[in-house]
């Protein structure tokens, strides 16, 4: 058995180049902006002082390569510049940290809903493959996959806020101020985002349950006459649910993307609505900082997920070493 440390080290090695390319992609986009980039990016907010500021921040007063190195140095020191629209000149990094807990709560709740609902539906559907329950669940999942997150949000608001008047349609209070109020406001946004995740998780769970059911070890278990509950629990589910860890990590990406829409519909002051506001207000440093931050979070979370998976499934270690 090869060392776990070696495999983790191999996963870590690709992180720096990936992060470097991410910054390079972002910087290339800035440099490709036609004409006078500062003027184009700032739009109506254009004034000399702001223009100088942005030019200096992005190294636009230098040739591309020098400018990139300059900018990269700042980014790695955590200096993402300052907002050019907000009056009190907030630092982008402070702004991001201030909004992170809100988005983290929403993302965790959505993942929780997505995973639990997805796994239950997927397992039920997979165990009854071809049966009536399977057909019903699969059709609902297919329909749900075709519904964009904002339509789910609108349906939820129509049902729970306008028709039933059960939940407030938008707004935010923090968990520490008013826990019940916080949850009441978070239910619909995390349902809107989480139901999307649930469809994907359910489809994969179903496929891997079916896969595990047709495997040799399950057949042996059945031939031995083991009770059905035992086979389902410790033979099928334990093997089928492992890949879900990885998928949940990958799903975080589309979840974070969807949160831009969800947070702006429900007026939740997280990183998603920060992205939206920065675009509307043409606060380019804030947009840039948030985009980089989201990509960084995605890469790091998936690194952790990868390592977890390696620890959880010895087969990965074995196969990883063969390669």
């Amino acid at each position: 058995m090869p060392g776990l440390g070696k495999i983790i080290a191999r996963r870590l090695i690709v992180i720096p180049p990936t992060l470097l390319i991410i910054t390079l992609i972002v910087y290339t986009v800035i440099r490709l902006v036609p004409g006078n980039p500062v003027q184009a990016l700032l739009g109506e907010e254009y004034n000399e002082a702001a223009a100088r500021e942005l030019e200096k921040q992005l190294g636009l007063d230098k040739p591309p390569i020098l400018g990139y190195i300059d900018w990269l140095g700042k980014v790695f020191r955590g200096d993402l510049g300052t907002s050019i629209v907000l009056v009190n000149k907030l630092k982008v990094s402070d702004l991001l940290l201030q909004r992170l807990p809100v988005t983290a709560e929403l993302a965790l709740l959505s993942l929780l809903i997505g995973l639990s609902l997805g796994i239950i539906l997927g397992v039920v559907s997979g165990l009854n493959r071809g049966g009536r329950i399977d057909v019903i669940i699969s059709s609902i999942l297919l329909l749900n996959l075709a519904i964009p997150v904002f339509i789910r949000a609108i349906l939820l608001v129509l049902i729970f806020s306008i028709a039933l008047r059960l939940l407030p349609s938008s707004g935010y209070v923090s968990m520490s101020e008013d826990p019940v109020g916080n949850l009441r406001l978070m239910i619909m946004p995390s349902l809107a985002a989480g139901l999307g995740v649930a469809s994907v998780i359910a489809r994969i769970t179903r496929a891997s349950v079916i896969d595990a059911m047709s495997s040799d070890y399950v057949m042996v278990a059945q031939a031995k006459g083991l009770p059905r509950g035992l086979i389902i629990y410790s033979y099928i589910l334990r093997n089928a649910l492992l890949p879900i860890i990885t998928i949940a990590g990958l799903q975080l990406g589309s979840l974070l993307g969807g949160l831009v829409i969800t947070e702006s519909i429900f007026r939740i002051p997280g990183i998603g609505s920060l992205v939206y506001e920065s675009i509307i207000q043409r606060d380019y440093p804030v947009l840039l900082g948030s985009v980089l931050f989201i990509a960084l979070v995605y890469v790091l979370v998936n690194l952790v997920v990868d390592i977890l998976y390696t620890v959880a499934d010895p087969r990965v270690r074995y196969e990883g070493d063969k390669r």
Partner: protein
Amino acid sequence: MKVINAKIFSRLYGILKEPRILAGVMILSSMILVSGISLAIGLADPFRTMVSKPLQPPSMIHLAGTDALGRDLLSRIFLGILISLFISLLGTIIAFLLGLPMGFISAIYKGSKVDDVIMRIVDSLLAFPALVLVLFISASFGQGPLISSIAIGIAEAPIVARLSRGTMIGVLSNQFVEAAVAIGAGKLWIIARYLLPHSSSVLITHFTLTLSAAIILESGLSFLGLSTSPPILSLGGIVREGFLYLETAWWYSLIPSMFLVLLVLSVSLVGDGLNDAIDPRYKVSREYI
């Protein structure tokens, strides 16, 4: 010639026999035809405002009600369907123009430095959630339908690259390709003679699935008001307008939403059906799209 025609027809018939594909094609084509024809002959007029009839609920004259300016909502939805389809179709084509060559080159030079570099770029691009990348690009280059298409194309390209690389590696591992290489066939010949024909059905499936992802992406972008601008709005943009009147006029956002879901559903039905119909060795894992 006749034999070939018969073959194509029997194959087409075989594909259309799959109920999901048939349903998807019928829904999609009737949506396009009905909207296109009624707009062309003037039956539907998305621009005529009737100040006296704002926000009317659905009735026999206005099947989907009217909007805030008294325009017929159904006519606007018809136009929206075509706009949504146009932007996302263009985006998907761009994604394939960018992603296919990357995947092909990567597969041919599998294991080399070139492959490494391309795959690293693909991984890095995938670290941006598609919607965030699209927002970033369209915010940088100015908003509009064309920029939206390009941004959608760039955001979907890495997925196309990764899937087509996998497909190509599958085709390349066949013995007939090895045989061709052994008798000295060039890289271009192998691409033209073996890779393209053997992967065409898979690529068409990819294309359909990418298109449904692109429609959703475009709808999100225009729901945020960053793609099309009034009065020519895609479906997402109309839903956005209606969202402002959610309490008083439910139909304003709900009916265009239904058409949007129907559009995505019809395309993904075709994609899913094709995916099950093609050679299982090259099956697309839909989950990653």
